[in-house]
Protein backbone atom coordinates (compact mmCIF):
# COMPACT_ATOMS: atom_id res chain seq x y z
CA UNK A 1 0.00 0.00 0.00
CA UNK A 2 3.09 2.22 0.38
CA UNK A 3 2.78 3.38 -3.23
CA UNK A 4 -0.77 4.34 -2.37
CA UNK A 5 0.52 6.62 0.39
CA UNK A 6 3.15 8.22 -1.76
CA UNK A 7 0.29 9.00 -4.08
CA UNK A 8 -1.62 10.56 -1.21
CA UNK A 9 1.26 12.62 0.09
CA UNK A 10 2.46 13.76 -3.28
CA UNK A 11 -1.05 13.81 -4.65
CA UNK A 12 -3.12 15.84 -2.25
CA UNK A 13 -0.71 18.71 -1.72
CA UNK A 14 -0.26 19.69 -5.34
CA UNK A 15 -3.83 18.88 -6.31
CA UNK A 16 -5.06 21.08 -3.52
CA UNK A 17 -2.73 23.85 -4.63
CA UNK A 18 -3.84 23.56 -8.21
CA UNK A 19 -7.50 23.34 -7.30
CA UNK A 20 -7.25 26.44 -5.21
CA UNK A 21 -5.78 28.28 -8.15
CA UNK A 22 -8.05 26.67 -10.70
CA UNK A 23 -10.90 28.78 -11.95
CA UNK A 24 -14.27 27.78 -10.59
CA UNK A 25 -15.75 24.91 -12.59
CA UNK A 26 -19.47 24.69 -13.02
CA UNK A 27 -21.59 23.79 -10.03
CA UNK A 28 -22.53 20.19 -9.61
CA UNK A 29 -25.05 18.50 -7.37
CA UNK A 30 -23.10 17.52 -4.27
CA UNK A 31 -24.44 14.07 -3.76
CA UNK A 32 -25.61 13.16 -7.21
CA UNK A 33 -26.31 9.54 -6.40
CA UNK A 34 -28.60 10.47 -3.57
CA UNK A 35 -30.16 13.23 -5.61
CA UNK A 36 -31.07 10.82 -8.36
CA UNK A 37 -32.34 8.22 -5.94
CA UNK A 38 -34.75 10.61 -4.23
CA UNK A 39 -35.27 13.73 -6.24
CA UNK A 40 -38.08 15.36 -4.26
CA UNK A 41 -37.97 17.22 -0.95
CA UNK A 42 -39.22 15.30 2.08
CA UNK A 43 -40.44 17.54 4.89
CA UNK A 44 -39.88 14.87 7.54
CA UNK A 45 -36.30 14.29 6.55
CA UNK A 46 -35.73 18.01 6.22
CA UNK A 47 -37.20 18.64 9.67
CA UNK A 48 -34.83 16.10 11.18
CA UNK A 49 -31.81 17.54 9.38
CA UNK A 50 -32.65 21.09 10.41
CA UNK A 51 -32.71 19.84 13.99
CA UNK A 52 -29.58 17.73 13.62
CA UNK A 53 -27.77 20.81 12.43
CA UNK A 54 -28.84 22.73 15.50
CA UNK A 55 -27.83 19.80 17.70
CA UNK A 56 -24.35 19.52 16.22
CA UNK A 57 -23.76 23.27 16.53
CA UNK A 58 -24.84 22.93 20.17
CA UNK A 59 -22.13 20.31 20.60
CA UNK A 60 -19.44 22.93 19.99
CA UNK A 61 -21.12 25.97 21.51
CA UNK A 62 -21.78 25.65 24.33
CA UNK A 63 -21.08 21.89 24.64
CA UNK A 64 -17.41 21.53 23.89
CA UNK A 65 -16.65 25.04 25.12
CA UNK A 66 -17.97 24.01 28.54
CA UNK A 67 -16.45 20.54 28.50
CA UNK A 68 -13.01 22.05 27.95
CA UNK A 69 -13.62 25.24 29.91
CA UNK A 70 -14.33 23.35 33.10
CA UNK A 71 -11.12 21.36 32.85
CA UNK A 72 -8.68 24.24 32.69
CA UNK A 73 -7.56 26.50 35.50
CA UNK A 74 -9.86 29.39 36.33
CA UNK A 75 -7.55 31.95 34.80
CA UNK A 76 -7.98 30.32 31.38
CA UNK A 77 -11.66 29.48 31.27
CA UNK A 78 -12.77 32.38 29.09
CA UNK A 79 -9.83 31.98 26.74
CA UNK A 80 -10.64 28.30 26.37
CA UNK A 81 -14.34 28.81 25.70
CA UNK A 82 -13.48 31.70 23.41
CA UNK A 83 -11.44 29.37 21.21
CA UNK A 84 -14.45 27.17 20.45
CA UNK A 85 -16.67 30.19 19.93
CA UNK A 86 -14.27 32.00 17.61
CA UNK A 87 -13.64 28.80 15.64
CA UNK A 88 -17.38 28.40 15.14
CA UNK A 89 -17.48 31.85 13.56
CA UNK A 90 -14.28 31.55 11.56
CA UNK A 91 -15.01 28.14 10.08
CA UNK A 92 -18.59 29.06 9.19
CA UNK A 93 -17.35 31.81 6.93
CA UNK A 94 -14.51 29.72 5.50
CA UNK A 95 -16.90 26.87 4.80
CA UNK A 96 -19.21 29.17 2.87
CA UNK A 97 -16.38 30.75 0.93
CA UNK A 98 -14.48 27.65 -0.15
CA UNK A 99 -14.51 24.82 2.40
CA UNK A 100 -17.78 23.24 1.34
CA UNK A 101 -16.69 23.28 -2.24
CA UNK A 102 -13.32 21.68 -1.52
CA UNK A 103 -15.10 18.91 0.34
CA UNK A 104 -18.21 18.28 -1.71
CA UNK A 105 -17.93 19.86 -5.14
CA UNK A 106 -16.97 17.75 -8.13
CA UNK A 107 -13.23 17.29 -7.97
CA UNK A 108 -10.68 14.50 -8.08
CA UNK A 109 -9.98 11.60 -5.72
CA UNK A 110 -8.15 13.83 -3.26
CA UNK A 111 -10.02 17.09 -3.06
CA UNK A 112 -13.18 18.71 -4.36
CA UNK A 113 -13.18 21.52 -6.90
CA UNK A 114 -14.13 25.16 -6.61
CA UNK A 115 -17.43 24.69 -8.39
CA UNK A 116 -19.33 25.54 -5.26
CA UNK A 117 -17.04 28.23 -3.88
CA UNK A 118 -19.20 30.95 -2.29
CA UNK A 119 -21.96 28.35 -2.54
CA UNK A 120 -22.38 29.21 -6.19
CA UNK A 121 -25.44 27.66 -7.72
CA UNK A 122 -27.04 26.64 -4.46
CA UNK A 123 -30.50 28.13 -4.47
CA UNK A 124 -33.55 27.85 -2.31
CA UNK A 125 -34.73 24.88 -4.38
CA UNK A 126 -31.45 22.97 -4.74
CA UNK A 127 -31.76 19.54 -3.24
CA UNK A 128 -29.24 17.19 -1.73
CA UNK A 129 -31.11 13.94 -1.75
CA UNK A 130 -34.49 14.62 -0.16
CA UNK A 131 -33.41 17.74 1.74
CA UNK A 132 -32.49 21.25 0.63
CA UNK A 133 -28.80 21.48 -0.20
CA UNK A 134 -28.67 24.59 2.01
CA UNK A 135 -29.41 22.34 4.97
CA UNK A 136 -26.74 19.88 3.89
CA UNK A 137 -24.28 22.76 3.66
CA UNK A 138 -24.95 23.95 7.24
CA UNK A 139 -25.12 20.42 8.60
CA UNK A 140 -21.67 19.69 7.18
CA UNK A 141 -20.53 23.12 8.35
CA UNK A 142 -21.22 22.14 11.95
CA UNK A 143 -18.91 19.13 11.49
CA UNK A 144 -16.23 21.38 10.04
CA UNK A 145 -16.64 23.55 13.14
CA UNK A 146 -16.38 20.94 15.85
CA UNK A 147 -13.36 19.17 14.39
CA UNK A 148 -10.87 22.02 14.81
CA UNK A 149 -12.54 22.98 18.07
CA UNK A 150 -11.71 19.51 19.40
CA UNK A 151 -8.04 20.11 18.65
CA UNK A 152 -7.87 23.07 21.03
CA UNK A 153 -7.98 20.70 24.00
CA UNK A 154 -4.49 19.51 23.17
CA UNK A 155 -2.77 22.89 23.48
CA UNK A 156 -4.97 24.44 26.15
CA UNK A 157 -3.65 27.37 28.21
CA UNK A 158 -0.68 28.29 26.02
CA UNK A 159 -1.41 29.13 22.38
CA UNK A 160 -1.64 32.67 21.04
CA UNK A 161 -5.19 33.48 20.00
CA UNK A 162 -4.04 35.01 16.71
CA UNK A 163 -1.89 32.01 15.80
CA UNK A 164 -4.70 29.70 16.82
CA UNK A 165 -7.05 31.38 14.35
CA UNK A 166 -4.52 31.25 11.54
CA UNK A 167 -3.74 27.62 12.27
CA UNK A 168 -7.37 26.60 12.29
CA UNK A 169 -8.11 28.41 9.06
CA UNK A 170 -5.25 26.65 7.30
CA UNK A 171 -6.03 23.31 8.91
CA UNK A 172 -9.66 23.29 7.89
CA UNK A 173 -8.75 23.94 4.27
CA UNK A 174 -5.64 21.78 4.00
CA UNK A 175 -6.57 18.87 6.24
CA UNK A 176 -10.25 18.76 7.09
CA UNK A 177 -11.82 19.56 3.74
CA UNK A 178 -9.70 17.07 1.76
CA UNK A 179 -10.12 14.22 4.24
CA UNK A 180 -13.84 14.99 4.32
CA UNK A 181 -13.78 14.71 0.53
CA UNK A 182 -11.87 11.40 0.65
CA UNK A 183 -14.49 9.78 2.84
CA UNK A 184 -17.80 11.53 2.09
CA UNK A 185 -17.27 13.69 -0.97
CA UNK A 186 -16.56 10.93 -3.46
CA UNK A 187 -12.83 10.72 -2.74
CA UNK A 188 -10.61 7.63 -2.84
CA UNK A 189 -11.39 6.30 0.65
CA UNK A 190 -15.07 6.28 -0.21
CA UNK A 191 -14.23 4.45 -3.37
CA UNK A 192 -12.10 1.95 -1.50
CA UNK A 193 -15.01 1.07 0.77
CA UNK A 194 -13.81 2.59 4.03
CA UNK A 195 -16.76 2.80 6.44
CA UNK A 196 -17.14 5.99 8.44
CA UNK A 197 -20.78 6.75 9.10
CA UNK A 198 -20.55 9.97 11.06
CA UNK A 199 -16.91 10.95 11.25
CA UNK A 200 -14.75 8.62 13.32
CA UNK A 201 -11.98 9.18 10.81
CA UNK A 202 -12.85 12.55 9.33
CA UNK A 203 -13.61 14.20 12.65
CA UNK A 204 -12.14 12.34 15.60
CA UNK A 205 -8.97 10.65 14.38
CA UNK A 206 -8.25 13.77 12.39
CA UNK A 207 -8.71 16.08 15.39
CA UNK A 208 -6.93 13.72 17.76
CA UNK A 209 -3.85 13.35 15.62
CA UNK A 210 -3.70 17.08 14.89
CA UNK A 211 -3.97 17.65 18.62
CA UNK A 212 -1.14 15.28 19.39
CA UNK A 213 1.11 16.97 16.85
CA UNK A 214 0.17 20.39 18.20
CA UNK A 215 0.80 19.34 21.80
CA UNK A 216 4.26 18.13 20.84
CA UNK A 217 5.14 21.11 18.66
CA UNK A 218 3.98 23.67 21.23
CA UNK A 219 5.46 21.79 24.15
CA UNK A 220 3.96 21.38 27.61
CA UNK A 221 2.31 24.03 29.76
CA UNK A 222 4.70 25.84 32.12
CA UNK A 223 4.75 23.90 35.34
CA UNK A 224 3.37 20.75 33.72
CA UNK A 225 3.96 17.87 36.12
CA UNK A 226 4.81 20.13 39.05
CA UNK A 227 2.09 22.76 39.47
CA UNK A 228 -1.42 21.90 40.45
CA UNK A 229 -3.41 21.98 37.24
CA UNK A 230 -6.59 20.47 38.60
CA UNK A 231 -9.76 21.28 36.64
CA UNK A 232 -11.22 24.41 38.19
CA UNK A 233 -14.91 23.64 37.79
CA UNK A 234 -16.13 20.23 36.69
CA UNK A 235 -19.76 21.27 36.86
CA UNK A 236 -19.04 23.06 33.59
CA UNK A 237 -17.53 19.88 32.15
CA UNK A 238 -20.53 17.87 33.26
CA UNK A 239 -22.87 20.25 31.49
CA UNK A 240 -20.64 20.22 28.44
CA UNK A 241 -20.39 16.45 28.26
CA UNK A 242 -24.14 16.15 28.66
CA UNK A 243 -24.79 18.56 25.81
CA UNK A 244 -22.24 16.70 23.72
CA UNK A 245 -24.11 13.47 24.40
CA UNK A 246 -27.48 14.97 23.51
CA UNK A 247 -26.09 16.73 20.47
CA UNK A 248 -24.41 13.54 19.30
CA UNK A 249 -27.82 12.24 18.31
CA UNK A 250 -27.80 14.87 15.60
CA UNK A 251 -24.22 13.97 14.76
CA UNK A 252 -24.81 10.23 14.31
CA UNK A 253 -28.50 9.80 13.61
CA UNK A 254 -28.33 12.98 11.54
CA UNK A 255 -25.74 11.33 9.33
CA UNK A 256 -28.57 9.22 7.92
CA UNK A 257 -29.65 12.48 6.25
CA UNK A 258 -33.17 11.15 6.79
CA UNK A 259 -35.62 10.37 9.56
CA UNK A 260 -35.76 6.66 8.90
CA UNK A 261 -35.00 3.26 10.39
CA UNK A 262 -31.30 3.65 9.97
CA UNK A 263 -31.35 6.97 11.78
CA UNK A 264 -33.29 5.27 14.56
CA UNK A 265 -30.79 2.44 14.80
CA UNK A 266 -27.94 4.98 14.79
CA UNK A 267 -29.54 6.78 17.72
CA UNK A 268 -30.05 3.55 19.64
CA UNK A 269 -26.48 2.33 19.23
CA UNK A 270 -25.14 5.79 20.04
CA UNK A 271 -26.98 5.75 23.35
CA UNK A 272 -25.84 2.22 24.19
CA UNK A 273 -22.18 2.81 23.37
CA UNK A 274 -22.05 6.07 25.31
CA UNK A 275 -23.62 4.41 28.32
CA UNK A 276 -21.38 1.34 28.18
CA UNK A 277 -18.24 3.44 27.90
CA UNK A 278 -19.30 5.61 30.81
CA UNK A 279 -19.68 2.55 33.00
CA UNK A 280 -16.46 1.02 31.71
CA UNK A 281 -14.29 4.07 32.41
CA UNK A 282 -15.96 4.50 35.80
CA UNK A 283 -15.30 0.89 36.73
CA UNK A 284 -11.67 0.89 35.61
CA UNK A 285 -11.10 4.02 37.68
CA UNK A 286 -12.95 2.52 40.61
CA UNK A 287 -10.71 -0.53 40.51
CA UNK A 288 -7.40 1.23 39.83
CA UNK A 289 -7.95 4.46 41.74
CA UNK A 290 -10.47 3.42 44.37
CA UNK A 291 -12.86 6.19 43.39
CA UNK A 292 -15.09 6.64 40.35
CA UNK A 293 -14.80 10.30 39.37
CA UNK A 294 -17.23 12.60 37.63
CA UNK A 295 -14.51 13.56 35.19
CA UNK A 296 -13.99 9.88 34.51
CA UNK A 297 -17.67 9.29 33.88
CA UNK A 298 -17.99 12.12 31.41
CA UNK A 299 -14.71 11.22 29.74
CA UNK A 300 -16.01 7.71 29.31
CA UNK A 301 -19.23 8.98 27.78
CA UNK A 302 -17.32 11.03 25.25
CA UNK A 303 -15.00 8.11 24.50
CA UNK A 304 -17.98 5.89 23.79
CA UNK A 305 -19.61 8.52 21.61
CA UNK A 306 -16.41 8.94 19.65
CA UNK A 307 -15.97 5.21 19.12
CA UNK A 308 -19.55 4.61 17.98
CA UNK A 309 -19.41 7.52 15.54
CA UNK A 310 -17.97 5.63 12.55
CA UNK A 311 -19.99 2.53 13.46
CA UNK A 312 -23.34 4.12 14.14
CA UNK A 313 -24.96 3.37 10.79
CA UNK A 314 -23.47 -0.07 10.46
CA UNK A 315 -23.68 -1.96 13.76
CA UNK A 316 -26.45 -3.21 16.03
CA UNK A 317 -27.08 -2.89 19.79
CA UNK A 318 -24.78 -5.74 20.86
CA UNK A 319 -21.95 -4.47 18.71
CA UNK A 320 -22.48 -1.04 20.21
CA UNK A 321 -22.31 -2.45 23.71
CA UNK A 322 -18.92 -4.05 23.04
CA UNK A 323 -17.60 -0.98 21.22
CA UNK A 324 -18.60 1.16 24.18
CA UNK A 325 -17.00 -1.10 26.76
CA UNK A 326 -13.77 -1.37 24.80
CA UNK A 327 -13.62 2.37 24.11
CA UNK A 328 -14.13 3.16 27.79
CA UNK A 329 -11.21 1.01 28.84
CA UNK A 330 -8.82 1.84 26.02
CA UNK A 331 -9.43 5.58 26.15
CA UNK A 332 -8.89 5.53 29.90
CA UNK A 333 -5.48 4.12 29.10
CA UNK A 334 -5.00 6.68 26.34
CA UNK A 335 -5.70 9.59 28.66
CA UNK A 336 -3.60 8.22 31.52
CA UNK A 337 -1.06 5.44 30.97
CA UNK A 338 -0.15 6.23 27.39
CA UNK A 339 0.10 9.98 27.94
CA UNK A 340 2.14 9.69 31.10
CA UNK A 341 4.42 7.16 29.49
CA UNK A 342 5.17 9.35 26.47
CA UNK A 343 5.21 12.55 28.56
CA UNK A 344 3.57 14.86 26.01
CA UNK A 345 1.12 17.41 27.37
CA UNK A 346 -2.11 16.68 25.52
CA UNK A 347 -3.73 18.88 28.12
CA UNK A 348 -7.38 17.91 27.79
CA UNK A 349 -6.77 14.61 25.98
CA UNK A 350 -7.84 15.49 22.48
CA UNK A 351 -5.70 12.61 21.25
CA UNK A 352 -6.18 10.33 24.24
CA UNK A 353 -9.95 10.37 23.86
CA UNK A 354 -10.73 11.42 20.28
CA UNK A 355 -7.68 10.01 18.52
CA UNK A 356 -7.60 6.71 20.35
CA UNK A 357 -11.37 6.44 20.52
CA UNK A 358 -11.69 7.18 16.83
CA UNK A 359 -9.19 4.47 15.95
CA UNK A 360 -10.89 1.95 18.22
CA UNK A 361 -14.22 2.79 16.64
CA UNK A 362 -12.98 2.70 13.08
CA UNK A 363 -11.47 -0.76 13.52
CA UNK A 364 -14.41 -2.19 15.45
CA UNK A 365 -16.74 -0.89 12.76
CA UNK A 366 -15.01 -3.35 10.50
CA UNK A 367 -15.59 -6.06 13.06
CA UNK A 368 -19.24 -5.51 13.98
CA UNK A 369 -20.70 -4.11 10.74
CA UNK A 370 -23.91 -5.95 9.83
CA UNK A 371 -25.14 -6.35 6.29
CA UNK A 372 -28.74 -6.05 7.44
CA UNK A 373 -28.11 -2.57 8.86
CA UNK A 374 -25.67 -0.72 6.62
CA UNK A 375 -25.40 -3.07 3.68
CA UNK A 376 -21.83 -4.06 4.54
CA UNK A 377 -20.77 -7.12 6.48
CA UNK A 378 -17.92 -6.99 8.99
CA UNK A 379 -15.47 -9.52 10.40
CA UNK A 380 -18.10 -11.24 12.52
CA UNK A 381 -20.17 -11.86 9.43
CA UNK A 382 -17.11 -13.29 7.72
CA UNK A 383 -15.85 -10.21 5.88
CA UNK A 384 -12.37 -9.99 7.43
CA UNK A 385 -11.22 -7.71 4.63
CA UNK A 386 -13.32 -4.86 6.00
CA UNK A 387 -11.01 -4.57 9.00
CA UNK A 388 -8.03 -4.16 6.68
CA UNK A 389 -9.93 -1.53 4.71
CA UNK A 390 -10.68 0.31 7.94
CA UNK A 391 -7.04 0.23 9.02
CA UNK A 392 -6.08 1.49 5.60
CA UNK A 393 -8.46 4.42 6.02
CA UNK A 394 -7.02 5.17 9.43
CA UNK A 395 -3.43 5.12 8.21
CA UNK A 396 -4.18 7.33 5.22
CA UNK A 397 -5.83 9.89 7.50
CA UNK A 398 -3.19 9.73 10.22
CA UNK A 399 -0.33 10.16 7.77
CA UNK A 400 -1.79 13.10 5.87
CA UNK A 401 -3.10 14.79 9.01
CA UNK A 402 0.16 14.43 10.94
CA UNK A 403 2.38 15.64 8.12
CA UNK A 404 0.18 18.56 7.09
CA UNK A 405 -0.53 19.67 10.65
CA UNK A 406 3.17 19.62 11.48
CA UNK A 407 4.08 21.69 8.45
CA UNK A 408 1.35 24.25 9.06
CA UNK A 409 2.36 24.69 12.70
CA UNK A 410 6.03 25.06 11.88
CA UNK A 411 5.33 27.72 9.29
CA UNK A 412 3.13 29.67 11.71
CA UNK A 413 5.76 29.31 14.42
CA UNK A 414 8.35 30.91 12.17
CA UNK A 415 6.05 33.64 10.92
CA UNK A 416 4.27 34.73 14.09
CA UNK A 417 5.07 32.34 16.90
CA UNK A 418 2.70 29.86 18.50
CA UNK A 419 2.92 30.37 22.24
CA UNK A 420 2.03 33.20 24.56
CA UNK A 421 4.87 34.59 26.68
CA UNK A 422 5.69 32.86 29.96
CA UNK A 423 4.38 35.96 31.71
CA UNK A 424 1.07 35.85 29.84
CA UNK A 425 0.78 32.12 30.44
CA UNK A 426 1.20 32.64 34.16
CA UNK A 427 -1.24 35.54 34.27
CA UNK A 428 -3.71 33.41 32.34
CA UNK A 429 -5.23 33.72 28.89
CA UNK A 430 -8.36 35.46 30.11
CA UNK A 431 -6.70 38.64 31.23
CA UNK A 432 -3.62 38.62 29.03
CA UNK A 433 -5.25 37.74 25.70
CA UNK A 434 -8.81 38.93 26.17
CA UNK A 435 -8.66 41.55 28.92
CA UNK A 436 -11.34 39.83 30.95
CA UNK A 437 -11.60 37.74 34.09
CA UNK A 438 -14.24 35.66 35.82
CA UNK A 439 -14.87 37.49 39.07
Amino acid at each position, binding site marked *: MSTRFKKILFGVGPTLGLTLLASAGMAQEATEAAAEAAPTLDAGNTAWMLVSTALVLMMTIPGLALFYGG*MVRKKNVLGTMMQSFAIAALVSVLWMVVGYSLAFAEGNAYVGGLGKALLTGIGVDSLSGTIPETVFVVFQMTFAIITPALITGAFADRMKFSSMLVFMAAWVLVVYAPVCHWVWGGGFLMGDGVLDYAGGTVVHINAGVAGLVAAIVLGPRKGFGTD*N*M*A*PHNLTLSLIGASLLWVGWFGFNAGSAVAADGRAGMAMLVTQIAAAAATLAWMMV*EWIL*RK*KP*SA*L*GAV*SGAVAGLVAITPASGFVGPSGALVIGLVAGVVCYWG*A*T*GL*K*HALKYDDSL*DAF*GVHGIGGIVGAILTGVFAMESIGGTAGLLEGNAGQVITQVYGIVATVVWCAVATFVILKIIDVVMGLRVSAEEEREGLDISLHGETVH
Partner: protein
Amino acid sequence: MKLIMAIIKPFKLDEVREALTPLGVQGLTVSEVKGFGRQKGQTEIYRGAEYVVNFLPKVKIEVAVNDDIADRVIEAIQGAARTGKIGDGKIFVLDLAQAVRIRTGEANAEAL
Protein backbone atom coordinates in the same frame (compact mmCIF):
# COMPACT_ATOMS: atom_id res chain seq x y z
CA MET B 1 -6.61 44.43 75.08
CA LYS B 2 -5.78 41.33 73.11
CA LEU B 3 -6.40 40.35 69.53
CA ILE B 4 -7.02 36.64 69.57
CA MET B 5 -6.57 34.86 66.29
CA ALA B 6 -7.75 31.26 66.09
CA ILE B 7 -7.37 28.91 63.13
CA ILE B 8 -9.97 26.16 63.38
CA LYS B 9 -11.73 23.49 61.38
CA PRO B 10 -14.53 25.13 59.36
CA PHE B 11 -17.38 23.04 60.70
CA LYS B 12 -16.50 24.13 64.24
CA LEU B 13 -17.23 27.78 63.61
CA ASP B 14 -20.78 27.85 64.98
CA GLU B 15 -19.81 25.98 68.15
CA VAL B 16 -16.98 28.40 68.81
CA ARG B 17 -19.21 31.40 68.26
CA GLU B 18 -21.78 30.03 70.67
CA ALA B 19 -19.06 29.33 73.23
CA LEU B 20 -17.98 32.98 73.16
CA THR B 21 -21.34 34.66 73.56
CA PRO B 22 -21.71 33.78 77.28
CA LEU B 23 -18.36 35.45 77.89
CA GLY B 24 -19.78 38.72 76.61
CA VAL B 25 -18.03 38.67 73.28
CA GLN B 26 -20.33 40.62 71.02
CA GLY B 27 -18.51 40.45 67.78
CA LEU B 28 -15.85 38.68 65.81
CA THR B 29 -14.45 38.54 62.32
CA VAL B 30 -14.03 35.41 60.29
CA SER B 31 -12.11 34.60 57.13
CA GLU B 32 -11.65 31.52 54.99
CA VAL B 33 -8.01 30.48 54.96
CA LYS B 34 -6.01 27.48 53.90
CA GLY B 35 -3.81 25.73 56.36
CA PHE B 36 -0.61 23.83 55.92
CA GLY B 37 0.56 21.63 58.76
CA ARG B 38 0.84 18.13 60.12
CA GLN B 39 -2.60 17.16 58.91
CA LYS B 40 -2.46 15.74 55.42
CA GLY B 41 -5.19 16.33 52.86
CA GLN B 42 -7.10 13.97 50.63
CA THR B 43 -5.85 13.16 47.16
CA GLU B 44 -7.62 14.44 44.11
CA ILE B 45 -7.22 12.45 40.92
CA TYR B 46 -8.05 13.78 37.47
CA ARG B 47 -7.47 11.41 34.57
CA GLY B 48 -4.63 9.80 36.43
CA ALA B 49 -3.01 13.03 37.56
CA GLU B 50 -2.86 12.97 41.35
CA TYR B 51 -2.83 16.08 43.49
CA VAL B 52 -2.32 15.77 47.22
CA VAL B 53 -4.00 18.78 48.76
CA ASN B 54 -1.47 20.24 51.18
CA PHE B 55 -3.50 23.30 51.95
CA LEU B 56 -6.63 22.42 53.82
CA PRO B 57 -9.63 24.66 54.26
CA LYS B 58 -9.63 26.29 57.70
CA VAL B 59 -11.47 29.20 59.23
CA LYS B 60 -9.63 32.05 60.89
CA ILE B 61 -11.41 33.82 63.72
CA GLU B 62 -10.18 37.20 64.86
CA VAL B 63 -11.65 38.56 68.04
CA ALA B 64 -10.56 41.57 70.04
CA VAL B 65 -11.18 41.29 73.77
CA ASN B 66 -10.29 42.97 77.01
CA ASP B 67 -7.41 41.50 78.95
CA ASP B 68 -9.65 40.37 81.79
CA ILE B 69 -11.57 37.86 79.68
CA ALA B 70 -8.75 36.95 77.32
CA ASP B 71 -7.86 33.71 79.10
CA ARG B 72 -11.43 32.55 79.31
CA VAL B 73 -11.93 33.33 75.66
CA ILE B 74 -8.88 31.26 74.77
CA GLU B 75 -10.12 28.35 76.86
CA ALA B 76 -13.61 28.63 75.36
CA ILE B 77 -12.22 28.54 71.83
CA GLN B 78 -9.95 25.65 72.59
CA GLY B 79 -12.75 23.71 74.20
CA ALA B 80 -15.23 24.32 71.41
CA ALA B 81 -12.87 23.86 68.47
CA ARG B 82 -11.25 20.72 69.78
CA THR B 83 -11.95 17.36 68.13
CA GLY B 84 -8.76 15.74 69.34
CA LYS B 85 -7.82 14.86 65.80
CA ILE B 86 -4.81 16.30 64.08
CA GLY B 87 -5.54 19.55 62.33
CA ASP B 88 -7.61 21.17 65.04
CA GLY B 89 -5.61 24.34 64.64
CA LYS B 90 -4.00 27.05 66.72
CA ILE B 91 -4.79 30.05 68.80
CA PHE B 92 -2.48 33.03 68.56
CA VAL B 93 -2.67 35.97 70.93
CA LEU B 94 -1.43 39.46 70.05
CA ASP B 95 -1.36 42.58 72.10
CA LEU B 96 -3.86 45.09 70.85
CA ALA B 97 -2.63 48.65 71.17
CA GLN B 98 -5.85 50.38 70.31
CA ALA B 99 -9.41 49.77 69.11
CA VAL B 100 -11.98 52.11 67.59
CA ARG B 101 -15.62 51.67 66.74
CA ILE B 102 -16.04 53.35 63.40
CA ARG B 103 -19.71 54.22 63.86
CA THR B 104 -19.25 56.10 67.11
CA GLY B 105 -15.57 56.76 67.40
CA GLU B 106 -15.64 55.05 70.80
CA ALA B 107 -12.20 53.79 71.72
CA ASN B 108 -10.74 50.65 73.24
CA ALA B 109 -12.96 48.84 75.75
CA GLU B 110 -16.08 50.67 74.61
CA ALA B 111 -15.27 49.86 71.02
CA LEU B 112 -15.53 46.09 71.45
